[in-house]
């Protein structure tokens, strides 16, 4: 697999700033809004947005983490057991505008599970979806994002990885392409 950097750390930060401004446009003072990151990798984007919004507006936006393990549709179908992460929602989502956040939107099966998981905590007023990377034309389920960091057109054998300072030490997006006869 040949790695190509498709978003470098400077572009990465610009994208987060743009996404934050898009959120401000739709949510004003965030008094009735909450950002919820999908475990395990969506939480980094959720936390970055929270920090960025604090910088821009001075507002502490409610931010949580949602684990979707028990809502997945592939239980018992993989070779490894599914290990749950932590759900951290210390606020009620009842009647809130929820922004569901993940790093890569691909088949949308994760988001489908995320919606189910979210609804078991109550009835939000509305739910929006934000993804840092949208791998277009690869949905298994008809779910589309409201906010997109970058769109990537990739084929099934390719892989897109979002790296975060918090975990990989650098902010970047990498596209792994298969090399013929490799």
């Amino acid at each position, binding site marked *: 697999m040949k790695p190509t950097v498709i978003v470098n750390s400077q572009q990465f930060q610009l994208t987060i700033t743009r996404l934050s401004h898009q959120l401000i446009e739709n949510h004003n003072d965030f008094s009735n809004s909450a950002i919820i990151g999908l475990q395990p990798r969506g939480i980094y984007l959720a936390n970055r947005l929270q920090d960025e919004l604090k910088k821009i507006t001075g507002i502490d936006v409610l931010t949580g983490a949602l*684990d979707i*393990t*028990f*809502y*997945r549709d592939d*239980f*018992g*179908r993989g070779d*490894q*057991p*599914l*290990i*749950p992460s*932590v*759900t951290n929602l210390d606020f009620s989502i009842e009647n809130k505008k929820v922004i569901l956040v993940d790093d890569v939107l691909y088949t949308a099966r994760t988001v489908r599970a995320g919606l*189910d998981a979210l*609804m*078991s*905590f*109550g009835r939000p007023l509305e739910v929006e979806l934000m993804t840092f990377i949208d791998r277009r034309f690869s949905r298994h389920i008809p779910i589309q994002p409201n906010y997109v960091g970058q769109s990537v057109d990739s084929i099934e054998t390719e892989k897109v990885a979002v790296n975060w300072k918090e975990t990989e030490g650098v902010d970047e997006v990498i596209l792994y392409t298969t090399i013929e006869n490799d």
Partner: protein
Amino acid sequence: MIKDLSVDHLLGIKQLSAEDIEIIFETADSFKKIINRPIKKVPTLRDVTIANLFFENSTRTRLSFELAEKRLSADVVNFSASSSSVSKGETLIDTVNNILSMKVDMVVMRHPNPGAHIFLQKHIDAKIINAGDGTHEHPTQALLDSYSIRERLGEVKGKKVVIVGDIKHSRVAISNIYALQKQGAEVMVCGPTTLIPKYIASMGVKVEHNLKKALEWCDVANMLRIQLERQEIKYFPSIREYTLQYGLTKEILDSLDKEIVVMHPGPINRGVEISSDVADSDQAIILDQVENGVAIRMAVIYLLASKIDKKS
């Protein structure tokens, strides 16, 4: 890192490793949060069918298993020996195979014969969870007991636990000894000589016949019920005398220079092995044990069910 149980069935604590126990506890942490939410159900096992086969009476364990299964969205069928063909002379394998023919993926079984599950596991093709086999093991009870100690005291390792009462007839005691030792706790058993198995010390546990001394030594006291239904002969002169010697009262607890944790696997015989004021005190975590039982059973069912092949 692959986190997977080393076993395909939960036959007893004896077959589990310390890592297995830790995996079960970590998974139970997630489920404990779920059962404390407004919507206590997850759809994970919606294509799994579980049969609860109770060849021996049970209220708490059976309810707890059934709740755990339903909160994981499994389909559940119940069976009790008193209302079945067992009384018509059918063998265990025939009974279970008949049930499995109806496409059941997992069997939760309580059986009066020690080792019934080990025997069954050799002959049928389904995941098996032992919900108690005679006087042998009761693994989910031991897991929830350790989990409750971990919750109250932070960890099980290094803790001193005394199991008081009818050790001879207690599957809870055997499973607890295995579980506690695997996690690095020290275990003592305490009770009248007649109710302590002769070779119990070979399991590496301390033996004490004086309740006061045992309590002074321990961090946690697990009080067992006197199982009169399993005792064909008299092991002590009277219940009254047993209570005087081994009943846990507020006076004894207050006379200790530390606060110990009091546990009981239930059902409680108030005024026999434990007095009412102790059972209802803050030191007793009896109802926490019951709550944790559901989370632990959800974890065990979840982890074993993930080994059912759904790929085909």
